[in-house]
């Protein structure tokens, strides 16, 4: 949740409220609290706010014991909060990437001093590409030297008694408890998720954070402060998307050819029936189907027939970006350019923000969408997991001036050129394509060559990107 933009109090409250729903669901099926509560575990993100992260884990343990305590467990282990922490990928930067080793180390230290049971440290090239063997080794070793060389794991709760950490812990616990109580009063976390409340609050926090960085109120070293012009060349993992897709399709085909298809469809049918009747253990049946070589897609489709598929409600926090950026020169310039363009073109500039391929990371896309709308764009949002053909069809239907592709899963080298080709085929080269997200520097030339009009990586100021692209759009009227 923090990766999506949640502040510590939101992350704490929503995670524990989720846990509470799991407990209720378990009890409803007739399980004893002690039969499953000790096995629950929590996944936290650990960011750069060092003391806050330590306080978060301490507050979480306190609140969780309070929550589970309501259900009168006999086994003290039921009250225990087991944690896994992952250092923040969002906090890592494309610029000056070796700084990321230090960032990850500090985050890992916070997670450790907050007493996480399990830890994931991110690779230094997280903001650029998928990890290479080199960067993955350094990430793993960051954990190892904290564990082997520093002795910090020898003490229990080393920050207990520090007036500042205790103060933060208390504050955070109180704030989170208020949010949890509000959620409970409104009918619980499931209801809140259905209504899109947590998502909206998290996205609002994300947009606010972005605006604070864009306006220079928060400094990220190497990004909006202390920047350097020297380029760091690091070896990156190259993923050939076309090849991966082919391999996966081949594997699927061979599994489907080799399995006993009668057995598989019986197992899938059993899932469908259980989903429809509400009788039986779905997890057990899913495991059985997987043993009979049913694919993940087939298993989830069997469930989908009864349950439908969850779809996030698309609501965006417009005006949050504006409220933080109002007096910013870049923001004002972008707004004026949008006005100029609207006068020349007869309508507001219109952008479609899309995600292509199997990549569901939409924090960046949402923040950009909200920011662009605040600058004066009409912003279309297309569904997740689109093919290049679908993106182009929607862009034509909505008649946009530009398409913004957000890519965080290494699909840019195949999918983005395909979109441009498809636009050409429809004689709409006038629709510009810009790309954002995680795109390694070394791919920039290739993408520009293919016709991309702008590449805006992590650390781009939204208003600046908007101004850049508006200038290109306006320049066309001079021709």
């Amino acid at each position: 949740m923090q990766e999506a933009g949640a502040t510590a109090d939101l992350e704490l409250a929503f995670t524990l409220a989720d846990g509470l729903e799991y407990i209720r669901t378990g009890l409803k099926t007739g399980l004893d609290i002690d039969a499953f509560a000790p096995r629950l575990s929590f996944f936290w993100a650990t960011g750069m706010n060092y003391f806050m992260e330590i306080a978060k884990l301490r507050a979480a343990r306190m609140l969780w014991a309070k929550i589970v305590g309501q259900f009168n467990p006999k086994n003290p282990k039921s009250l225990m909060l087991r944690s896994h922490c992952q250092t923040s990928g969002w906090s890592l930067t494309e610029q000056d990437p070796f700084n990321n080793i230090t960032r990850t180390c500090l985050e890992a230290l916070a997670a450790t001093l907050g007493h996480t049971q399990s830890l994931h440290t991110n690779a230094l090239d997280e903001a650029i590409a998928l990890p290479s063997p080199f960067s993955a080794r350094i990430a793993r070793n960051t954990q190892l030297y904290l564990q082997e060389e520093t002795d910090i794991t020898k003490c229990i709760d080393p920050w207990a008694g520090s007036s500042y950490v205790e103060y933060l812990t208390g504050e955070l616990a109180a704030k989170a408890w208020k949010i949890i109580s509000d959620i409970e009063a409104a009918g619980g976390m499931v209801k809140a998720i259905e209504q899109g409340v947590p998502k909206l609050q998290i996205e609002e926090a994300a947009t606010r954070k972005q605006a604070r960085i864009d306006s220079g109120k928060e400094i990220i070293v190497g990004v909006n402060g202390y920047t350097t012009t020297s380029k760091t060349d690091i070896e990156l993992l190259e993923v050939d998307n076309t090849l991966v897709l082919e391999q996966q399709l081949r594997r699927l085909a061979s599994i489907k050819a080799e399995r006993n298809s009668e057995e598989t469809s019986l197992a899938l049918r059993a899932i469908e029936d259980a989903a429809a009747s509400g009788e039986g253990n779905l997890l057990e049946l899913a495991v059985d189907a997987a043993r009979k070589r049913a694919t993940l897609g087939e298993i989830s489709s069997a469930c989908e027939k009864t349950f439908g598929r969850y779809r996030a409600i698309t609501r965006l926090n417009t005006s949050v970006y504006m409220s933080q950026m109002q007096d910013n020169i870049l923001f004002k310039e972008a707004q004026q350019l949008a006005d100029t363009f609207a006068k020349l073109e007869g309508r507001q500039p219109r952008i479609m923000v899309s995600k292509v391929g199997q990549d569901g990371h939409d924090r960046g896309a949402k923040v950009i969408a909200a920011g662009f709308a605040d600058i004066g764009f009409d912003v279309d949002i297309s569904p997740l997991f689109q093919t290049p053909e679908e993106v182009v069809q929607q862009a034509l239907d909505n008649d946009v001036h530009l398409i913004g592709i957000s890519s965080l899963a290494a699909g840019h080298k195949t999918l983005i050129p395909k979109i441009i080709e498809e636009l050409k085929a429809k004689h709409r080269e006038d629709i510009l394509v810009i790309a954002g997200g995680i795109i390694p520097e070394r791919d920039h030339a290739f993408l520009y060559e293919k016709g991309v009009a702008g590449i805006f990586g992590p650390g781009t100021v939204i208003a600046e990107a908007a101004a850049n692209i508006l200038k290109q759009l306006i320049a066309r009227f001079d021709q």
Partner: protein
Amino acid sequence: MSSSETHSRLKPYHDPDVDTVVNGIMNGDRHMLSRAITLIESLKPEHERKAHEILDRCITKKTSSLRIGITGAPGAGKSTFIEALGELIINQGLTLAVLAIDPSSRQSKGSILGDKARMEKLAARKEAFIRPTASSGYLGGTSPKTHEAIVLCEAAGYDVILVETVGVGQSEVLVDTMVDYILLLMLPGSGDELQGIKRGIMEIADAVAITKTDGDQSGIAAISRAEFEAALRMLPVKHPVWKREVFLTSALTGKGIKEVWENISEFFTAMRKENILETRRREQLNSLLYTVLEEMLKKEFFSHPDVIASKEIIERQVLSTEISPFSGARKLIEAFIPRR
């Protein structure tokens, strides 16, 4: 990348001529339909002229389309409902155009048009054309431009046109001047909203669908249904041949969607039988004529050089109570049309 590099590569804006657009639309080319809707939405005079040329040629095409308005408060589940109804319509072998109007921010002039994401499945169907439009200044969203877009969609051969609008009070009533059938979507338990502003919308509704009546909402939904039925009985009849009904629906389970579609079909059969549909559409054209005329007059008036010249002086006179607002307005009119 230097900027000169970029500019030399920029392709000029796609600008097909009127013949290409009209022929495209008539042959069901949705790309040309989309371009024409853009021309309609544009505030540029040359776009407007071109749009009207296209419209004049498209409006002559006779079609038997169904124009349906779907309205409701934000959060009532309009997109989800339209997606479920839309899929059902397409599965009947019909084609569907959805014109969705989303609010523009007054401050930033921008907007978020999330309709495609909200109607993901429908957006993937080639039988469906979904066009979100920013309301840009038109309160409540619908404007004469929506009516023009409907005409274009019909010329492109779409059988059913759904117009989705946000129900915000009085301006909403405008949608009644451009569609045949209006479905009002309400959430379970929203019966108390019946007082006040919702009355205007209730009066123009041809049916009410209570949405999201699945799960633990069914109890409240039944009560809401009774409340809405009672409220509809209190309102004056909209069409003498038509009795308005309240449906319990759920886009999640599909409950009530088929019934709503049957209700729509019955409505059109009844209206056609009595020839009301034709009469109403003629009335709508007539009312549109005057709405557009008013807009054009306003525009002509405020861009008239003599009006611009005398506006400031007259404004000052009014503000200093030298003359009344009434004679001020009269003076401005006289600047526009000199008294003979």
